[in-house]
C-alpha cells in the first residue's frame, strides 16, 4: 500500500488519544477513520502517473570512465500539481559505484500543464551498450499521506566506448613515424622502401644514393630520399575466445588487446596504411573493412564497444579462413591472442602456414604482471613454490613464442600497460625495415 512515513507517524501519535482518552473501539475508530479518509483524499488529489509524458534527450556515446548526461523531460498534462520522486533506472554498471541510489533519484515538482527537465548523470563502469530501464514516479498528494506510483518506459541507449588509454603514447609513436619519413636510403635501405623525392646533396649523405641522372639535369648534386611504403593492408584479428576472458589486473585480457589494437590502428591510419578489424571466436563477432583513413578509428571504437569475451574455445581454422578472406593481398596480420600453450599448439600452429604463406604475421599477447610478481617471490617455502610455478609458466610461454617464431611470426608479449606501445614499436620497426 503506498502510504508514507507521515501516515505511520500520525497513526503512532494516535495511540496516545486511543490509550489515554478513549480506550475502546470508539476511540480506535475515531483515530483511524479520519486517517483513512485523509489518505483517500490524498490519493484522489495526487497527480496520476499514467498520464504524464516523458521524453529523453542527451548523450548517446561516451568513453569508459567519462560521465554522460541524459536528460529526461517530464510533462504534466493534468490539472493537478505533480509532487514526488522520480527514479531513472539504469543497469547497475551505469552508475559510479556507491552512488546508485542517490544518482538515480530526483525530486519532482511539476505544476499543472508545465514540464521540467531532469538531468541524470551516468558514469558507466563497463563497456558496451547501456539501456535505460523504466522510469518510476511516485506522486504524492497535497497532505503527503498517500502516494500513487507508476512506471514509464522511455527507451534510451548509451554506448560506452573502450577507454583507449594508450592514446597517450600516440604522439611519441607518430614522431617516430615522421622520423622514418625522408631518410636517405643509407640508413634504412630495404627492399620495401619507396622512392620519395630528390633533394640537394648535403655532406654526410651516402654517395650511393646520388641520383646521377637528376644531377645531370640540374646544376646541383641530387640524392634520392626514401619513405616507408604506404597503402599497406593491416588486418587486426582479435581472439575473443575463452583465453581472452582471463583477468589481468582488473580487466580482461581482451580489453588490453583492444587498447593495443586501437593504438596500432590510429598509428597505421596516420602512416597511410589501411586498417581492417576482425573479431572472432567460434564465429565472427565484429568485422570492420574498407574504411577511409579518417573514419577508421571511430568505426573501430564503435565495433569494439560491445565486444565481450565468450567462454568458448576459439576455432582457429575458421579464424584463419575468415582472416584470409578479409586480407586479400599480401598484408600484415596482427593476431591479438594469448600465448597459452595448448590453444596455440593445437589450434593455431597447424593452420599458421596458410597465413604466413601469403602474409606477414605478428602475434601480440597480454602477459600477466602477477606471474612476474610470483616469479620474484622469495622468503618462504610457499613463495618459492609460487616462484617455481611462475617460472614454469613463463618457460612455457617462451617455448610457445619460440615455436611461433620458427614459422616466421613476430611475437610481442607484454603486460597490459606495455602491450600497446610494444605493438606500435614492432609495427614501426617492421615498417622501417620494409617488411610490410
Amino acid at each position, binding site marked *: 500500500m503506498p502510504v508514507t512515513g507521515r501516515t505511520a507517524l500520525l497513526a503512532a501519535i494516535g495511540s496516545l488519544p486511543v490509550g489515554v482518552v478513549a480506550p475502546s473501539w470508539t476511540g480506535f475508530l475515531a483515530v483511524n477513520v479520519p486517517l483513512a479518509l485523509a489518505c483517500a483524499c490524498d490519493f484522489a488529489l495526487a497527480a496520476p502517473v499514467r498520464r504524464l509524458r516523458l521524453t529523453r534527450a542527451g548523450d548517446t556515446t561516451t568513453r569508459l570512465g567519462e560521465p554522460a548526461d541524459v536528460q529526461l523531460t517530464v510533462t504534466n498534462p493534468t490539472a493537478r500539481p505533480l509532487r514526488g520522486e522520480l527514479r531513472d533506472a539504469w543497469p547497475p554498471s551505469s552508475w559510479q559505484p556507491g552512488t546508485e541510489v542517490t544518482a538515480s533519484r530526483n525530486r519532482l515538482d511539476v505544476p499543472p500543464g508545465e514540464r521540467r527537465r531532469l538531468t541524470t548523470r551516468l558514469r558507466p563502469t563497463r563497456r558496451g551498450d547501456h539501456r535505460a530501464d523504466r522510469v518510476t514516479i511516485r506522486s504524492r498528494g497535497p497532505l503527503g499521506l498517500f502516494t500513487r506510483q507508476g512506471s514509464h518506459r522511455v527507451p534510451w541507449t548509451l554506448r560506452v566506448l573502450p577507454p583507449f588509454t594508450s592514446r597517450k603514447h600516440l604522439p611519441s609513436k607518430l614522431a617516430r613515424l615522421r622520423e622514418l619519413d625522408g631518410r636517405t636510403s643509407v640508413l634504412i635501405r630495404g627492399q620495401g622502401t619507396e622512392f620519395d623525392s630528390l633533394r640537394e646533396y648535403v655532406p654526410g649523405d651516402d654517395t650511393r644514393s646520388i641520383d646521377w641522372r637528376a644531377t645531370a639535369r640540374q646544376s646541383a648534386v641530387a640524392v634520392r630520399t626514401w619513405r616507408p611504403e604506404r597503402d599497406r593492408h593491416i588486418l587486426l584479428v582479435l581472439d575473443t575466445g575463452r583465453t581472452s576472458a*582471463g583477468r589481468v589486473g582488473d580487466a580482461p585480457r581482451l580489453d588490453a588487446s583492444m587498447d593495443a589494437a586501437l593504438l596500432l590502428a590510429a598509428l597505421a591510419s596516420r602512416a597511410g596504411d589501411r586498417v581492417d578489424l576482425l573479431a572472432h571466436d567460434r564465429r565472427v563477432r565484429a568485422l570492420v573493412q574498407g574504411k577511409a583513413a579518417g573514419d577508421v578509428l571511430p568505426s573501430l571504437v564503435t565495433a569494439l564497444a560491445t565486444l565481450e569475451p565468450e567462454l568458448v574455445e576459439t576455432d582457429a581454422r575458421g579464424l584463419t579462413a575468415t582472416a584470409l578472406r578479409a586480407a586479400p593481398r599480401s598484408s600484415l596480420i596482427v593476431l591479438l591472442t594469448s600465448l597459452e600453450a595448448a590453444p596455440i599448439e593445437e589450434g593455431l600452429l597447424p593452420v599458421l602456414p596458410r597465413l604466413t604463406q601469403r602474409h606477414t604475421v605478428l602475434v601480440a599477447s597480454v602477459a600477466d604482471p602477477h606471474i612476474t610478481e610470483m616469479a620474484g617471490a*622469495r622468503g618462504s617455502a610457499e613463495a618459492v613454490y609460487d616462484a617455481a610455478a611462475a617460472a614454469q609458466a613463463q618457460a612455457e610461454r617462451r617455448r610457445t613464442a619460440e615455436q611461433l617464431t620458427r614459422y616466421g611470426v613476430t611475437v610481442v608479449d607484454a603486460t597490459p600497460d606495455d602491450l600497446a606501445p610494444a605493438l606500435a614499436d614492432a609495427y614501426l620497426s617492421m615498417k622501417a625495415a620494409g617488411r610490410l
Partner: protein
Amino acid sequence: MTESPRARIPSVADSGTASTSTAPTPRQLWTRSRGIALAVVVLLVAAVAIAAVRSGDRHGRLDPRSADSQGSRAVAELLADRGVSTRVVTTVKEAGDAAGPDTTLLVADPDLLDDRRQSRLHDATVDSGGRTVLVAPGSPSVSKLAPGVTADPAASFDSTLSPDCALPAARRAGSADVGGVRYDTLVPGAEACYLDDGLPSLLHLPATSAKDVPSKDVPSTDVPPKTGDSAAGPPKNKAEHAPQKGNQAPSEPPARGDTVILGAPDILFNDRLDEHGNASLALQLLGSRPHVVWYLPSLSDDALDDTADDDSFFDLIPSGWLWGTLQLTVAAVLAALWRARRLGPLVPEELPVAIRASETAEGRARLYRKANARDRAASALRSATRTRLAPLVGVPAARAHTPEALLPALAGRLHSPGQDPHALLFGPPPTDDADLTALADRLDALESEVRGS
C-alpha cells in the same frame, strides 16, 4: 539533477505521442484477470455444490437438537416427555460444571477430546456422583475416561446384539443396536453386556471407589418410552415395565458416579431409535437422573487453561495500554508498508566473467606445495636461472642447459670463492623446504653476481 527554467507548453494535454506508461489499461487488466476470476468462480461454485452434496447424513450427528437421520432429537423429546431435561454443552468446562449427582453426562464423541480435556473431564465426573455415558469411545479416550477399560482393535461383526447379562436395563431392552467397539475390562464389578465373540459392547462400570457400593447401582427408575408421541415415530417398546415419573430421583443416589460405555451410537440416532430395543435401552441409560447434560465436543472449546478464579495477563493490565498497543501495531504495519514499497523494480544485468589469468599458475603452485614437489620446483627455478644466465655469459640459448657449455663460460665471471655453480645449477633436488628456499636465494645471488661482474 538540475531543473530547467519553467517552460509553459501550449497544449500538452492533446499532444499525440503514445503513452510510455507501463501501467496496464483497464482492458488489459480485464483480459489478464478474467481467467483467474473465472477459475475462482468455478472453484466457489464447486465448493458450495460439493458441500451441499456431501453434508448429508453427517450433519448434526448425535445432536439432541437435530432432526436429521443421525441426529438425536427423538431421544431428547422422549426424555423430555418423561420429565428429564436435556442441556447441550460444547466445552469441557461447562460439562465439568454441570456434572452432579442428579445429572447424566453424555459425551457424544470422546475421541475428539485431547489428553488434557479427557483428564479434565474425568476429574470432573469421577466425584460428581452422577452417571457418565460415553458414546463409542475408541482406544484414544477410553483408557483415560474409564481407567481399567481397553478398547479391542477389532470392531464387532454384528450391529444388533442380544444382552446376555444381568444388567436390568439391558435385560428389559432386549437386543439392541449397540454392536461397535468392543471393550475389555479388569474393573471389579463391571457388568459386560451385548457380548460379541466374548467381548462386550456395553459396559457398565460401578462407582469407582473402594467403598462397598453395590455393582447393581443402576437406579430402579426405568423410563420406557411412551408410544406414538415421539418425533421419530413410535419406537417398538420392548420394555414392559410400567412407566413411572421420570423426575423421580433415585431413592438412593450413589455417592460416586457410575459410567456406561456404549460401543456404538446407533441407539441414539433418530432413524434407528425405533428398531429392536434401542429406545428402551437409550431411555433407561439416560433417564436415570432428572437432568441430561449432552456434551458435544467442539473446536471452539479453547477456554481450557482459564480456571475461573485465575485472571490472565491481559485481564490484569489497564485497557488503555491494550488499545494504545493496538493503535501502535497499526502504526507499525503502516510503517512496514511505507518502507516495503520500492521505487521500481531492481534492474538486472549480466555480470562479466571474472577469471584471473594467473589462475593456472597459482593452481600449479598449490599442487607443488601439496605434493611437496621440491624436485620439480627446483628444476623449474634452476632452468629459469640458466635461461637468464646464458645470454649474459654468451652461451646460445639452445645450449643453456648443458653443463659443458654453460659452466666454463660462467667460471670466468664468478669471483667469490666457495661457490659451486655445478651443484647449484645442475645439482640434486633439495631435501626439505628450507633447502629449497635457500636454493632460490643462492640462485638469485649467483645471477646478481654475474650481472654485476
